């Protein structure tokens, strides 16, 4: 095997890993702060992909309207996320965990059927803008520009989240709120706003991932649950609530899948879950999580 082939596999693995991370990061962030398992995360991701299709159609469907879609669709679902948090989740914080789970699960059913109603069962194509659709040669291998951009975005997301949570005042408040909600409230901090913000941010990230993946595949029914389950696996592997854990787990899973494909066809879905199984047996709280009894 040539060096360029290996490079090719690495880039392919990192691309899918980073796309997965974009989804998983929002999921684990919401879990870490709100202590809510957001089943609707995948549905929001899918919804954003559909919205990006419509935005582009609205602006004449030229490839360069993708930029508009990239701006508008994530914001649209972020607004939806804020509404969901305020009207559906907020009344649930004092209730049993089960009720919160049911709300986010019910949202999956509602959102998925709504997309089916609004956009129909047929897959939709989303085109890439010209700048991103080319290929460039590096070290004897050629890569699609878009792949490299996606990897970059993944790393930037990680860096951005880390800086935000560790180096900003709001980030400190959020981490304090996740650690000890009562104490933080007692210090006069409005957790309601924090919760809305985080849920909305999570939705925005899901939306961004949805729009980013749209040109690579097609926008279609079912894309929500497959990504959600993979993202959950990554979150479990990395440790629930740990963004850094999700990041490393995404890379691990992405690379593992692309290298695994060399030997066994069809291992792609299984690999993630095999890793997860091993992690669950050895460290049920994940690689970077803390055991909580």
């Amino acid at each position, binding site marked *: 095997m040539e060096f360029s082939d290996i490079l090719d596999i690495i880039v392919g693995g990192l691309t899918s890993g980073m796309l997965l991370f974009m989804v998983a990061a929002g999921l684990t962030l919401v*879990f870490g702060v709100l*202590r809510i*398992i957001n089943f609707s995360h995948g549905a929001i991701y899918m919804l954003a992909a559909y919205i990006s299709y419509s935005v582009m159609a609205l602006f004449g469907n030229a490839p360069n309207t993708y930029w508009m879609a990239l701006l508008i669709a994530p914001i649209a679902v972020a607004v939806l996320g804020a509404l969901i948090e305020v009207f*559906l989740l907020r*009344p*649930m914080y004092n*209730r049993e*965990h*089960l*009720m919160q*789970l*049911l*709300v986010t*699960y*019910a*949202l*999956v*059913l*509602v959102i*998925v*059927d*709504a997309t*089916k*109603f609004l956009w129909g069962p047929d897959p939709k194509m989303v085109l890439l803008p010209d700048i991103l659709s080319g290929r460039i040669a590096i070290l004897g291998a050629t890569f699609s520009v878009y792949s490299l951009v996606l990897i970059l975005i993944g790393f930037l997301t990680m860096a951005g989240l880390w800086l935000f949570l560790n180096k900003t005042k709001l980030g400190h408040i959020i981490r304090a709120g996740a650690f000890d909600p009562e104490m933080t409230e007692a210090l006069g901090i409005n957790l309601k706003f924090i919760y809305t913000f985080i849920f909305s941010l999570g939705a925005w990230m899901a939306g961004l991932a949805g729009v980013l993946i749209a040109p690579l595949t097609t926008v279609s029914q079912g894309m929500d*649950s497959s990504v959600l*389950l993979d993202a*959950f*696996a990554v*979150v*479990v592997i990395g440790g*629930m609530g740990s963004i850094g854990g999700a990041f490393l787990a995404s890379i691990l899973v992405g690379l593992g899948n692309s290298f695994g494909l060399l030997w066994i066809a*069809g291992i792609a*879905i*299984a690999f993630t*879950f*095999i890793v*997860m*199984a091993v992690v*669950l*047996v050895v460290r*049920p*709280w994940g690689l970077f999580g803390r*055991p*909580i*009894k």
Partner: protein
Amino acid sequence: MKSNRIGTFLPLLFLVFLFLLGQILPNFYLRIIIEMAILGLFAQSLNLIMGYGGMISFGHAAFYGFGAYAVAILLRDTGMSLVPAILTGTVLTGVFGFIVGAICLRAAKLYFAILTMAISQLLFVLVYQWYAFTGGDNGIHGLTVSPWMTDPQHYYYFVLAVVGLCFFAIRVILNSPFGYTLRALRDNQERTVFLGAYVWWQKLIAFVFAAMFAGIAGGLYVGYDHMAYPLLVNWSKSAEPILMVILGGINTFWGALVGAVLFVIMEMVIGKITTYWLFFLGATILILVMFFPKGIWGYVEEKLAPFLARER
């Protein structure tokens, strides 16, 4: 004491009623009741750990599907007939439940929910990929059961007997010291530790019971539909019994069954009017959770409380 007798008398009367229905209803309706009964058992098996034990499992389909596949594979590969296949399948599901439970119970609450979901999805992927053994995404089709069992009316009575027995068994378990310890754990786990309870074992055994009853339901489904397919293990299938339990009423015994019956009816009626029945299901759950958290049967039971024995 009089009210207690009504509590045992009514279910018997209900069984007699169902028996008579088997004599008069056409096969189409019998099939619907069969489905309700199987899903009712599935929901009740979850209710055992979720409603009474406070353990939220989001992967209960793993056991329903495991039971179904176990029976399907036994029917396909061995000369076993349905009843021994279901018995064997139940034992295997119990063993599987023990392993899954032992892993998942290392975590608590939401983490437990995620772990159960993750493991069920692992099983889904396995079933989906392993063409040689499970038929992959095609599943296992065209299974044969004895001609007697193929007759819908006969199978109706078979399901009625099995589900009836299981409900009775679950009832006995829930009314035993074990069942009350489970409630105590749900209410206040820390306190039970200082009373000398072996919390981990207590929960694990309950989990295995729940897995086995779900496995029986899965096995009954294979006997009814003569096939097994990956959707039986999928996470959407795990959500179904949760929805049924909530629909009927968590913390009630009959709520699980009522929820299953309503679920099947809703699916049929709304499914006939629109292809977007899941939308309405989702909306229904939102309304229930927001405004009627005790569920339909929970509401009825509240109204009937003065007349019935306490059923919690």
